């Protein structure tokens, strides 16, 4: 037996791969296939599935109601990603260009808020954003800056704010990693060749930081699209995202097949969006270099 293993590199490779394959199979592929199968079945009255094949769940996914919520969720996720990029890029650049010692303290400062549980931090925003008793509105009203409380809570603004706050470090860290490795002599070379500040950024920094930007955008976009805690709390249970509808199918509506169908749609959309994004960025990167 041992001799066989020693002689055959293929078998050896398989033995080494086995734990990873088993892991992927048990925790990724198998659940995915179960979700896929469930999405074609009928619901049990109080949860579970009835083994009766149907396409009804996929027809319902395209009902105007759910589809509108889906497109709204995409809009919220895109807005969150763009805002994170606009805020995160300069932050990452600033940190990456400081001396080593300060850099570490700044990174630490970025991470400290995230030692607190996400749920608690989201609830903390409630204290600030509440319409009539929130700190922001109370302060502005008492200073006479506004007459009517601002609609800060229970709408898309609150949700996007909460998501940007929650996922900003996921944008900053990969961009920082890309910028930190950037060879400073390249910038000097560009300046020597009479490139202005904008041109240095556009033709040297930006293309070289693209891998970080892509990774960061994915890390922000994917969880934002599927978010359900932030909209549930900051949306006041009134403004829903697709994640809320999916979780509602399992946690309240007892409709596992429909929840599965919505999840499949979301996964397919994310896959397609990711591929398009990668392709676009590759072209951009090629042109920039």
């Amino acid at each position, binding site marked *: 037996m041992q001799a066989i293993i020693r002689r055959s590199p293929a078998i050896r490779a398989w033995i080494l791969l086995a734990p990873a394959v088993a892991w992927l199979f048990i925790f990724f592929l*198998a659940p995915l296939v179960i979700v896929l199968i469930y999405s074609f079945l009928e619901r049990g009255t109080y949860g579970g599935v009835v083994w009766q094949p149907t396409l009804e769940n996929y027809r319902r996914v395209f009902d105007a109601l759910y589809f509108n919520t889906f497109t*709204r969720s995409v809009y919220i996720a895109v807005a969150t990603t763009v805002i994170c990029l606009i805020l995160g890029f300069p932050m990452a650049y600033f940190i990456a260009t400081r001396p080593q010692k300060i850099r570490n303290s700044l990174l630490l400062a970025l991470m400290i808020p995230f030692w607190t549980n996400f749920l608690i931090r989201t609830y903390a925003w409630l204290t600030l954003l509440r319409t009539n008793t929130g700190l922001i509105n109370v302060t502005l009203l008492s200073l006479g800056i506004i007459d009517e409380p601002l609609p800060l809570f229970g709408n898309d603004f609150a949700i996007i704010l909460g998501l940007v706050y929650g996922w900003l470090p996921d944008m900053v860290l990969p961009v920082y990693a890309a910028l930190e490795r950037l060879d400073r002599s390249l910038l000097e070379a560009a300046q020597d060749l009479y490139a202005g500040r904008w041109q240095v950024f556009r033709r040297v920094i930006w293309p070289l930081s693209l891998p970080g930007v892509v990774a960061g955008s994915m890390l922000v976009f994917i969880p934002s699209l599927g978010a359900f805690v932030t909209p549930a709390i900051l949306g006041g*249970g*009134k403004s829903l995202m697709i994640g809320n509808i999916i979780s509602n199918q399992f946690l309240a509506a007892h409709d596992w097949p429909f929840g599965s169908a919505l999840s499949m749609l979301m996964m397919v959309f994310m896959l397609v969006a990711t591929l398009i994004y990668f392709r676009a960025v590759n072209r951009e990167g090629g042109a920039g270099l």
Partner: protein
Amino acid sequence: MKKFASLCTTLMLLLVLGLVACTSGGESAETETEVPASNEAVTETESTGETAVEPATEIVMYNWSEYIDPEIYTLFEQETGIRIVEDNFSSNEEMLAKLQGGATGYALIVPSDYTVSIMKEEGMLAKLDHANIPNLSNLSDEFKNVPFDPGNEYCVPYQWGTTGIGYLDGVVETPTSWSVIFEPDPNAPYYGRYTMLDDVRESFAAALIYLGYDINTTDEKQLEEARDLLIKAKAGLAGYDSDTFEDLLAAEENVLAHGWNGDFLVAQEENENIAYTIPQEGGVIWVDNVCIPATASPEEKLAAEMFINFLLDPEIGAMLSEFNYYASPNKAAEDILGEEFLSDPAVYPPAEVRERLQFIKPVGEFESVYQRMWDEVKSANP
């Protein structure tokens, strides 16, 4: 390429095995419905002294939030050495979905009347061993034979109450009709400052009552009307909230809320302007019950029955009502609660109000229609 193909076949094989495991898991869930019977067998042998079941030393109670005085757990632990850990849910549907999804480890749950019927039918509840609950005799007669569980076979009533409107007295006029929520005046001071329960059956009940329909209707047309009403009302709504509606009223963030009477009465301690009323069209009446899921082990079940018995003690029953301000089904506790509590119309609605209250009942297959329309309400952007 051949290797890849063989890899695929291996994966598919494993997949099929996995699925077989899944389906057999489903079957074992079905056989669990027989657990109550086998539990009885265990307690029978216990009485003959063959195998004595020792109560578990720690059990989990799955309850609504802020529904029990934590002091009761401490007293119970001092008396029996059994520790009770609490986990919370905020709607019957949430609790049911979690248990249906295969959650185990809960020894005590607190479903409302209509959910007891559903769980009984689905075989999710264990039969109570009355020998372990001698205090059952403390229940008032009305609650010894509730329609959803005659003879307290599966459940013991925990507390009962009503669903109506809580408001800040002095800030808004006493709401006499559900129209304050369903036909709000955009210029009224309370516009945008009220919440509705995040609960499919409760919110539909409010709309159906306002429309004059049966709250358990299975007429799709009536339900569509109720849905459209709920969507229209969304424009003036601060949000859907089942957990903190009373706190938001106490903090004066909101001035009106659709909710459960006891929650408002407890919040009165923080803000004495809070008042509770049931509009002229009527409201919902409900009974919450302590039950034991069929998945509880014999040891957990015994400990749970000991706790149910403890809850039925007159002193503990009174403690419960003094904490959550809901009416007690415990006749023996009434002497301790005193006349002031027993005559509070917000706790014990007078006969003429009671006539206008309806119980939510299970609607079977039609539940999916309620759920779909509730999805539509929650997703709509008015």
